[in-house]
Structure formats: C-alpha cells, structure tokens
C-alpha cells in the first residue's frame, strides 16, 4: 500500500519528462501524463512490483468546453486500482478537441477494450491500435458524439423522429395527455 505522493514519486523518477502536472491535495490525487506516452506509463504501472496496478476501475472521457478558466480540451481519465497493493491512482491525458487520438491500453487491462469503445462512441476519441473500435452504445451508423458539449441532436435517425415532435410538445405544454390510451381506442 502506497500513498498517492509516493506513487507520484515513483512515476516522476521513472518518467521525469512525461509527468506534466499533478495534484495531490484533492479527493482523488491525479497526475497528468503526456498523451504519447500513456501506454508506456500504464504498462510500467502494471508491471512494477511496488505499484502493480492490476486493474482499471474506470476510464472516462471528459469534454472541457465552455468552462471558464479552462482550456478547451478533451481529457481521458484512468482510475487505476491495485488489488494486490490496495492503493489507487488517477492518470489524466489531455487531447485536442479536433481529431483526438491516443494509444490503447487494451493490451494492459482487458476491460479497457469496452471502456475505450465507449469513449470513442461518446467523444470520438480514437484509440490507436484498438482491436475492435466500434460504437458500443449507439447504433453503428449514428452520427456525432453525444457527450461532447457542442453535440447537436439530429432531427431524425433513419427517418424516425428522434426529438419530441413539435405537436406533442405543444400538447404537453397545454396540459393535454400525450400518447394514446390502448384501452380507449
């Protein structure tokens, strides 16, 4: 069991150039890693016996757009956990909002396969070297990346209205029942 500052120390010793920023005094201490070396850092963190981060608890994409005081960017956040050592750490990677692309950690933690597919589906982040980078929650032919802050919902999908139809919205606003009652034809 290591505390977050100790883990950071190990990382800084191993990758002096690659740790761009870190914050230790928060609820979940994190370190920002250079995007190009995430695979290298992750595989070190798994194989190093003192760290042995053997599982990836969560992989999330975050779209920082329209937030005061923050540069517009995409972030991939890796919540790592070690079942052996029982300590945790958070890695972050900054990506540009246009054409974001990063190496896959699928070969390190098998579950990353699905998490990365989700991040691809929702944010359009490409994971280079991923074995099966398809949309996972949305249909294969869905357009756009829904969890981006500037996502515009399409009017229709394959001819089916996706948004609430205008006439129903008006009915609902007037307090009329929307939809049909199957028992009153």
């Amino acid at each position, binding site marked *: 069991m290591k505390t977050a500052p100790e883990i950071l120390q190990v990382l800084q010793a191993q990758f002096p150039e690659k740790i761009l920023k870190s914050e230790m005094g928060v609820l979940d201490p994190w370190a920002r890693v250079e995007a190009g070396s995430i695979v290298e850092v992750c595989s070190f963190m798994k194989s190093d016996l003192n760290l042995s981060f053997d599982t*990836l608890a969560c992989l999330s994409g975050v779209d920082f757009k329209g937030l005061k005081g923050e540069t517009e960017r995409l972030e991939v956040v890796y919540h790592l956990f070690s*079942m052996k050592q029982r300590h945790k750490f958070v890695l972050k990677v900054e990506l540009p909002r246009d054409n974001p692309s990063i190496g896959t950690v699928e070969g390190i933690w098998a579950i990353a396969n699905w998490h990365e597919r989700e991040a691809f589906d929702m944010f359009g982040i490409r994971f280079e070297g991923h074995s099966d980078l398809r949309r*996972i929650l949305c249909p294969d032919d869905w357009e756009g990346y829904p969890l981006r802050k500037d996502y515009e919902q399409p009017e229709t999908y394959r001819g089916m209205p996706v948004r609430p139809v205008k006439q129903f919205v008006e009915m609902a606003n007037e307090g009329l029942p929307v939809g049909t009652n199957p028992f009153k034809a």
Partner: protein
Amino acid sequence: MQVEAFEGEEMILNMGPQHPSTHGVLRLELQTDGEVVQKITPHIGYLHRCFEKHAENVDYPGVIPYTDRMDYIASMNNSLGYALAVEKLMGIEVNDRVKALRVIVAELNRIASHLLSIGTYAMDIGAFTPFLHCFREREKILDLFEWTCGARLLYNYNWVGGLSHDIPEGFVDKTRQFMAEFEPVIAEQNELLSFNKIFIERTAGVGILGEELAISYNVTGPNLRGSGVSWDLRKADPYCGYETYDFNVPVGQGKFGPLGSCWDRYYVRVREMEESLKILRQALDRLPDGDVQEKVPKKVKPPKGEVYGRTETPRGELGYYIVSDGSPNPFRVKIKSPCFTALAVLPVISKGEMVADIIAVIGSIDIVMGELDR
C-alpha cells in the same frame, strides 16, 4: 454488424434482444457449430437512455431519480452510491441514524436483488418453482419499501445529505418479522435448488472465470468473489459505517468443480443473503435517534473538483466519477457499471461451451441491462 467469414458447418444464431433469458435486451451473436458455441459477440445499447447526458442537464439532486432507473433491481444501492459521492465532494458527514437507515435499506435491497438473480437463474436452468418462491419473499421487501417511501421499484430515497423519509412506525418490527420468515427460506432454497444434482451438473464446471482474468476485466462483486477473491468494498473501503458491523465475505470454494464456475457465483449470492441478514439484525438493534434530513443542504452546489465514489451494489463495484465546475449542475457524471465489466468477460469465459451453457453463464453473471446501457 458485419458477418465474418465462417466455415461451411457453422451457423450464426442471433440470441436476443427479444429472448426469454437474456435478462433484458441483450443481443448476442453466437457462431455455433451444432450445439457448441465458437464465438460470441455481445451487442449492447438497446436500453441506452443517455443517462450521462441527462445528468449534465439537471441539478445534483435531480440526478438521483435517474440513478434509480439504471439498475432498477437495486435502486437503493445505486442512489446510495451517488449520494455518497456528492456528499464526499461537498464534505457532508451525515448523522448516525441516516447511516444506519442507509445500511438497512441497502441490505434489504441487496437481498431483494439476489432473490431475483437466484430465482431467474433457476428459471434459466429450467426449474420454475424456486423462481416463484424467491419472488414471494422479494414481494415482502418491496412491501416494506413501499411503506417507507411510497415506491416499490424506483425509490428516490437516498438524498444528498439525508433520506427522503424517515421509516414509518413499526418498520423495525415488520422487518424483524420478515427476517424471521425469510431465514428458513434460504435453507429450503438450498435443498430445492443449490444442492440439486442436476443443477450442480448444469452449473459447476461451466463458465470458469479465473482470478487473473477477472481482475484484468475488473469484474467485481459476487462474480469476483465466486472466483475466490475476498474483495468487498464494504470491508475494503467502508462507507456508511460498514466497518462497525460484523459480517463475513463469502467466497467461492470450487466445491463441485473448478473454482470460479457458475455454481460458485450463484452460491456466493445465496450466502451473501445470510450475511445481509446479519448486518440487518445489527443495524436494527442499534438504530439511533436523529433527524434524517438534518444535513440536507438547501442548495446542492459542490465546490469545483472531482470525485470517484464507489460502493458495493449487489452486482459489484458501482463507481461514480463526478466532475464539478462549481455550478448547480454536474459538469460530467460517468458511471462505472459492474454489469458492463461482467458482460465484457462473457465472450471469453463461455467460448467453446454449449448453447445451453451460454444461458447458464449469462444468468450467473447477473447483469441488468438498465445499468449496462445506462
């Protein structure tokens, strides 16, 4: 959706999204050679309701009803995880009554969820009667919940900083009565199903999930414990005062075949119900006085920051990654769903099994599509 090239003797069998035992709207593409399944490709997303997008557009308390709708079998546990994460972000410490009540509802909900899991599992294997016995007991728990907060499935009970209602008068006695009635049912269930020769033949030795594979896929909860790993967040990373309760963490023992089989996962759930009863008994005994809404903030507006809160739901580690920008709406909420990781491992552990075994494995990992697809 492309059909890969396959040899002449193989057949693509499309299982789901409408199928009696895919536990919701899961769709599996099976490549079968006679009865033997060569390859499985899960297709998910049929129940995707954009939870994470919704959460960005409502305020913090407004997310709670949505969390209930993720794992609708164990809503209490879902909203508990979210409430705890937000409280952690805001630095709220709730009083002891709230803690004890949260433990009580979470454990009752855990029993209800495991009952459903066990009952439907029996049905997957072809035994119908245990299913109804389980539902009979589950009904009593739902009645208790209905009495407490007016809802039977989607409770909106755990609020940020407190609870929506205190328990009604007589709740403790009714719960004790339920526990007294329920305890013999577990033994009956074991006799009828768990140790039935046919049931063991069908489930032990099928869908073997090894420890390393499980950890690599971040499989959690009863599925991980079925593989012999004693890992329970209630013990390892306690919340709500779980560290003050005396209970055991049941793990799979590989009694009837290799460790980590379907039977092990199933039986871990059966024994977890007994442990939940233990916790319930202690919580009911100690239940302190207090105001359940004492710490509920007028306006939930966490400071800028982020948190990854995790709790042990009946299905495993449920994580909420919440990013706050200091406004009343969350900036980003990401759910790490235990079912998501459990289903990801399904193609690996059921490769080369028979069609009937696929059903046994799906049932044993106990997924709820509402949470998987969010």
